[in-house]
């Protein structure tokens, strides 16, 4: 990843240049396709230049009214060499990899309200996946300049533990893109999920401090996990839309690589307990 492969510093509030999900988008949209990010996509996007901590993609987007009536939420991505084909509701895209972390895409979008946001979510996920990252079902807080992720199945207490981190800022509600860069692993929030009851972080890309599996317990504790347990924890929370054996094997490879670079542990929390000091101690204990 070189600085030359990055987007030039974007004029502030340029609607078609933004960073979302760890990807710096630069979108050329035709006049029939008014570009607008909605809801969480707008909230978790930034117009700031985050430099080499994000991937870069230039998208030429055109309107395709015939895609407006598609149903379903599945995202299909197939790569052959350096070219990928992406298909999801209201979106078709062909993506070419120009160099490390640098992509160009042509996309057909339905002009329906969710077309642009579907493209952002699906393309960011596909590119994060392509460079060895992963999208995790996680809440996250900003802690001392980094992102700390909480994972676990529904009901484990991901949002609850974030809510008990008074003094920290909420970084992500439900989904986080985690990805490698030349300067380490980074995290970026993606859309969806219940609101975390903390002041919002203004950061959209942060160094990844660690991933903690949340378990409700009678006695609080935080501990690192073994490599095998780490793979279990990450796989339990990783998003994978391709159910082929090859895709699952590649995901295991990525999770193994991630678990060798990112701390993964278990936090046993007591309902109502304030955990921030213990989380900070765990993060600092390297």
């Amino acid at each position: 990843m070189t600085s030359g492969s990055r987007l030039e510093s974007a004029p502030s509030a340029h609607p078609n240049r933004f960073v979302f999900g760890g990807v710096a988008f630069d979108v050329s949209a035709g006049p029939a396709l008014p570009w607008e990010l909605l809801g969480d996509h707008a909230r978790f996007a930034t117009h700031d230049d985050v430099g080499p901590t994000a991937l870069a993609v230039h998208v030429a987007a055109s309107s395709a009214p015939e895609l407006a009536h598609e149903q379903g939420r599945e995202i299909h991505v197939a790569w052959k060499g350096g070219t990928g084909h992406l298909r999801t509701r209201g979106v078709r895209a062909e993506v070419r990899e120009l160099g490390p972390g640098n992509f160009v895409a042509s996309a057909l979008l339905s002009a329906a309200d969710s077309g642009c946001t579907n493209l952002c979510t699906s393309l960011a996920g596909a590119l994060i996946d392509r460079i060895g990252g992963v999208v995790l079902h996680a809440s996250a807080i900003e802690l001392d300049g980094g992102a700390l992720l909480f994972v676990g199945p529904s009901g484990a207490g991901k949002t609850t533990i974030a809510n008990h981190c008074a003094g920290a800022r909420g970084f992500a509600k439900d989904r986080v893109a985690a990805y490698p860069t030349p300067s380490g692993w980074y995290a970026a929030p993606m859309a969806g999920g219940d609101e975390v009851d903390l002041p919002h972080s203004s950061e959209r890309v942060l160094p990844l401090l660690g991933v903690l599996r949340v378990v409700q317990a009678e006695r609080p504790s935080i501990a690192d996990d073994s490599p095998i347990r780490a793979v279990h924890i990450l796989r339990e929370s990783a998003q994978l839309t391709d159910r082929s054996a090859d895709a699952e094997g590649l995901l295991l490879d990525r999770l193994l690589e991630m678990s060798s670079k990112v701390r993964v542990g278990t936090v046993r929390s007591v309902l109502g307990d304030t955990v921030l000091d213990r989380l900070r101690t765990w993060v600092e204990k390297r």
Partner: protein
Amino acid sequence: MTTGISMEARVSQSSRIAARVVDGKAVVVIIDTQALHTLNEVGTFVWELLEESSRSVSELVDSVEASFEVERTRAQADLLSFLGQMSELGALEVEEAA
């Protein structure tokens, strides 16, 4: 445990799994159920044998007996139990000889 698997049956890995060895233990994901299992030392040994090609149960018993300090009857009973469980989970396919 009675598994109904004969010594002549051929065993192979399912095509609907993904697996990697981590710290000497096989981690197996069964794609259709999204279940993830970690095998012990002997299970990993058998799993790696099956990565090369399908084997008969008796061949697997021979290999386990030769590689671990275990009596043949014990190796056979443990192996049949393991194969039955893994087959039920969808990780292995067992084909009885015609």
